């Protein structure tokens, strides 16, 4: 049995533990030994994203819609993994400008606009209201159910209970108390609430542990592991459906939910608060980038198993799937686990409510109430003494107000919706901030008017397409308004605006609101002018990573006395804190404030940033302007400063380009120089080789001519031998010179080619006729094998013959006298001719087969006794074949000889004609 006093006291004990942790955290912070200065606590605090909606609602959602619940966690994972720079930039900007909330961020970016900050606050409060009421509902439902243990009666319409005995109200009040105690102890909202963050992190641990415990209990306690659970579930048709990704399903809903949750992780006021405002160090964000998605993964592991088990245990409609986490242990009579499950849900809810309440109250105070109060001249706030008390009162009342508002929403509307639906309505509201935030930090051209128009348009569409229908379904408005459209105008139906009926309510609303929001933002921004202050702020935000945090002071003109500044700070932060901050400032700048009369721009800027942390940037700007004489800054000044800055940036950019260019040119020059050196060396080598090749036959010719001249008495046979040598060597010399000239022309591209269509057989015949004598001389056998009907080649006939003669002469040259054989074959291979000339001579060593086509390269073994070659024949052959678009190469022939191959494309035109 679970007595009500047990449940109550456990709840209270848990809350006391939270108080203790928060208190301890604050104490440690005061001692300078921060409890939260590590990425793990930071990540756990971000996990405040997982509310009771996750805790109870995901299971409910999975039980109905299957795996769709994952999208709520896919969005944040994408933002953390894919766009850490977005969060990083927000953190950097917020630290530099002492941003206290998302309203403050927008207000500050768009020229410290009071109106914009107020609008964001109103939207946030209205938008988040359903979300807070959702948490209250979850806590009171689970509490009531647990009291009935072990009976599984559904809680019924709790809201029917009278207000003063309503558990939900009690829950709301207790949460308000906690938020007030730990959220409004200091007045500077941009200072870290260390105790609070520690408590939130603890809650994230508790809810994770509780959910995992329930999951393990269900999977291993009720069933024999995952396999058993799922195989049993497969027996039910209606359950099998939730375990598969719905093939024909509504992908628009998946996309919508992913987009919404991506916006939510950035734009929800409480997420902005823990991720950006409470961030201690940018390095923590880098770790959270993967730690947070890991947390999301862990807390989602058991969602589907619990949903499936719940569907099997409670087949009827009596038990709401949203309560499976609690009802499964209860049905099994496991008090301990049921109690733990309840505590987990409680922690998920309290964490969200407290942080949301604090974030919203800061916004209400700084961006809504204070600006109004400061403007009411009758109150004379601008000249009154200590305002810290007033500020605290405003914040505390705001917290109470917000929770009561949440309670009111719950009482009148909350019952008619499932948990997930309520949460998504809130997400859609928060998503309206996304366009103005993104444009604000990436597009300098976004203006205040543009942001105001976009937000207003988006918000109105949201109200019309999501909030009003919710009211209508709760009976606050006639239901006809939803079904028939206002005044019966069909194309104004809130769920099918302009006849769009293809998507679900949420997607429908998101499409129209984002169209209106983004469209208005861009259009109005393009057609409106920015004020001087807007330009400055736009530059500070968009260029956050390039500017130093104190660059803002450069945009300030005018002067104030130190006394005025001091006075201002004392009024908003209290004397002690003001003195502490001023002396810290003096230390860091190395100045003695006591001796200063006139406050310089830097000090004025510092004071404004301190005030911004207390009352928001818009109000701070107003307050500081009231004591600074000579205007904050004129448009002309801004233009000059901005121009100057952009000129300097432009100039240094150009310099950078120049030096990069110079470097590149140097590298190119160096490469060209190396190339020249290499060419020079090659030319040297070439000349020396040519000279050697020319001198050799010349030596023979000269020697024998002189011998014959000096020795008229040599024998007749000797004379003939010597003359024969002279003639042969002269011919060799002529050939060599011709080859050199040909090659030089070919290489220089000056050779005149006589290209024509030629039959391969004819070329081969002519080549054979030219070298026929050689075969006879050395008694070498020749086999010729030409495939009949070969298409023509597009070549220079004489050059082609030259190549063949060269190959054939080589083949003969390297054959042994009398035993030599040469095989010539020509056959078709696809669209090309494959020619081969094979011999059974000495062959070519494999290592030399690539270089043999180089100039003056003769195989080492072949030089001996083969003086006839110029060393250029193969080099020229390769040039010729290359020119014909073919390829020449050499391989080992069978039986040790060499085999030269030539592949040549057939004449394209002839092929075409042949085909036709």
């Amino acid at each position, binding site marked *: 049995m679970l007595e009500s006093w047990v449940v109550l006291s456990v709840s209270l004990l848990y809350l006391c533990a939270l108080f203790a942790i928060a208190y301890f955290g604050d104490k440690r912070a005061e001692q300078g030994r921060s409890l939260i200065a590590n990425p793990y606590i930071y990540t756990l605090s971000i996990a405040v994203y997982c509310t009771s909606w996750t805790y109870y609602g995901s299971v409910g959602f999975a039980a109905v819609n299957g795996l769709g619940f994952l999208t709520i966690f896919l969005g944040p994972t994408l933002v953390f993994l894919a766009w850490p720079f977005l969060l990083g930039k927000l953190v950097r900007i917020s630290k530099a400008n002492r941003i206290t909330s998302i309203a403050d961020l927008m207000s500050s970016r768009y020229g410290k606009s009071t109106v914009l900050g107020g609008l964001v606050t109103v939207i946030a409060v209205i938008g988040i209201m359903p979300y807070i009421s959702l948490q209250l509902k979850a806590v009171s439902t689970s509490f009531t159910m647990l009291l009935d243990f072990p009976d599984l009666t559904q809680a019924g319409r709790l809201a029917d209970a009278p207000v003063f005995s309503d558990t939900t109200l009690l829950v709301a009040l207790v949460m308000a108390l906690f938020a007030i105690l730990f959220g409004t102890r200091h007045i500077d909202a941009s200072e870290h609430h260390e105790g609070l963050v520690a408590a939130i992190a603890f809650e994230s641990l508790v809810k994770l542990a509780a959910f995992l415990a329930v999951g393990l209990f269900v999977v291993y306690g009720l069933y024999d592991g995952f396999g058993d659970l799922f195989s049993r579930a497969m027996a039910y048709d209606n359950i099998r459906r939730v375990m598969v990704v719905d093939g024909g399903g509504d992908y628009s809903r998946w996309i919508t939910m992913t987009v919404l949750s991506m916006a939510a992780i950035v734009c929800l006021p409480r997420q902005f608060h823990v991720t950006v405002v409470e961030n201690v160090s940018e390095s923590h964000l880098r770790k959270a980038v993967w730690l947070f998605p890991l947390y999301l993964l862990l807390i989602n592991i058991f969602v589907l198993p619990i949903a499936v088990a719940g569907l099997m245990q409670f087949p009827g409609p009596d038990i709401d799937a949203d309560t499976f986490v609690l009802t499964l242990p209860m049905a099994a009579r496991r008090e301990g686990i049921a109690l733990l499950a309840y505590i987990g849900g409680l922690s998920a809810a309290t964490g969200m409510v407290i942080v949301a309440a604090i974030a919203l109250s800061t916004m209400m105070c700084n961006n809504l109430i204070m600006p109004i109060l400061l403007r009411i001249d009758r109150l004379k706030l601008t000249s009154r003494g200590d305002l810290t008390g007033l500020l605290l009162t405003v914040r505390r009342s705001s917290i109470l107000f917000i929770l009561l508002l949440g309670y009111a929403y719950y009482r009148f509307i909350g019952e008619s919706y499932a948990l997930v639906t309520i949460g998504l309505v809130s997400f859609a509201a928060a998503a309206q901030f996304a366009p103005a935030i993104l444009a604000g930090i990436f597009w300098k051209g976004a203006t205040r008017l543009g942001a105001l128009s976009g937000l207003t348009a988006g918000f109105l569409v949201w109200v019309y397409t999501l909030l009003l229908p919710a009211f209508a379904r709760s009976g606050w408005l006639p239901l006809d308004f939803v079904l028939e459209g206002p005044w019966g105008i069909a194309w104004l139906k809130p769920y099918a605006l302009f006849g769009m009926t293809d998507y679900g309510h949420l997607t429908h609303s998101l499409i129209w609101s984002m169209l209106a929001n983004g469209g208005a933002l861009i259009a109005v921004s393009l057609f409106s002018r920015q004020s001087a202050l807007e330009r400055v702020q736009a530059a500070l935000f968009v260029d956050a990573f390039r500017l130093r945090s104190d660059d803002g002071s450069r945009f300030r003109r005018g002067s104030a006395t130190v006394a005025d500044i001091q006075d201002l700070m004392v009024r908003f932060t209290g004397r002690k804190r003001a003195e502490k901050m001023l002396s810290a400032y003096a230390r860091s700048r190395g100045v003695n404030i006591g001796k200063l009369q006139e406050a310089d721009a830097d000090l004025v800027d510092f004071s404004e940033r301190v005030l911004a942390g207390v009352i928001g940037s818009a109000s701070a700007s107003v307050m500081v302007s009231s004591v600074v004489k000579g205007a904050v800054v004129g448009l002309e000044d801004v233009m000059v400063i901005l121009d100057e800055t952009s000129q300097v940036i432009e100039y240094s950019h150009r310099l950078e380009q120049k030096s990069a260019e110079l470097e590149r040119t140097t590298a190119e020059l160096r490469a060209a120089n190396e190339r020249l050196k290499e060419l020079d060396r090659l030319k040297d080598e070439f000349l020396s080789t040519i000279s050697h090749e020319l001198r*050799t036959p*010349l*030596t023979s010719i*000269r*020697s*024998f001519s*002189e*011998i014959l001249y000096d020795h008229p008495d040599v024998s007749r046979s000797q004379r003939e031998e010597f003359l024969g040598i002279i003639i042969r060597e002269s011919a060799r010399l002529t050939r060599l010179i011709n080859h050199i000239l040909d090659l030089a022309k070919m290489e220089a591209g000056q050779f005149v080619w006589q290209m024509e269509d030629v039959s391969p057989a004819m070329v081969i015949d002519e080549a054979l006729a030219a070298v026929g004598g050689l075969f006879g001389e050395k008694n070498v056998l020749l086999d010729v094998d030409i495939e009949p009907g070969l298409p023509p080649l597009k070549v220079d006939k004489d050059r082609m013959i030259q190549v063949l003669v060269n190959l054939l002469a080589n083949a003969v040259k390297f054959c042994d006298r009398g035993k030599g054989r040469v095989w010539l074959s020509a056959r078709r291979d696809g669209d090309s001719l494959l020619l081969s000339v094979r011999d059974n001579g000495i062959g070519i060593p494999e290592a030399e087969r690539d270089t043999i086509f180089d100039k003056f390269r003769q195989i080492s073994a072949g030089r001996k*006794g083969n003086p006839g070659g110029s060393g250029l024949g193969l080099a020229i052959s390769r040039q010729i074949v290359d020119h014909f678009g073919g390829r020449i190469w050499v391989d080992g022939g069978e039986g040790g000889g060499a085999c030269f191959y030539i592949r040549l494309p057939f004449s394209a035109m002839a092929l075409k004609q042949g085909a036709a």
Partner: protein
Amino acid sequence: MGRSVLVVEDEPNIALSLRFLMGKLGLDVRVAENGDAALKACAEQPPDLILLDLMLPERDGYDVCREIRSNPAWRDVRIIMLTAKGRDADREKGLALGADDYITKPFSTRDLVSRVEAFFAGEAAGSDQLAGDGDVRR
């Protein structure tokens, strides 16, 4: 005792002309087609003079010259380099390796013959003077 000359030349036509010219001088002529054959011929019977081509397959003329100069038994062998390598650097390298003379191809047969004759005439007068002759020609 007859004077002997070793022609080291891989180009058969040139070898033939050198054999003819040296034969006309009344010298005992042997021909080697490559570096290894040249060293082998030296080992069998050191010649008085070597006409040494530089561009030989495998072991080139420089190598042969170095080998011969490193062997004290062949201290008296005179070496004339005969080569198509005509650059000053080639010539200096040859002389630095211990060649006694360096003749560029194509050469005048009369010039070659008179230098060979001068060698043997100088040898008859004493090896010191011969070395001096080499220096003068340089």
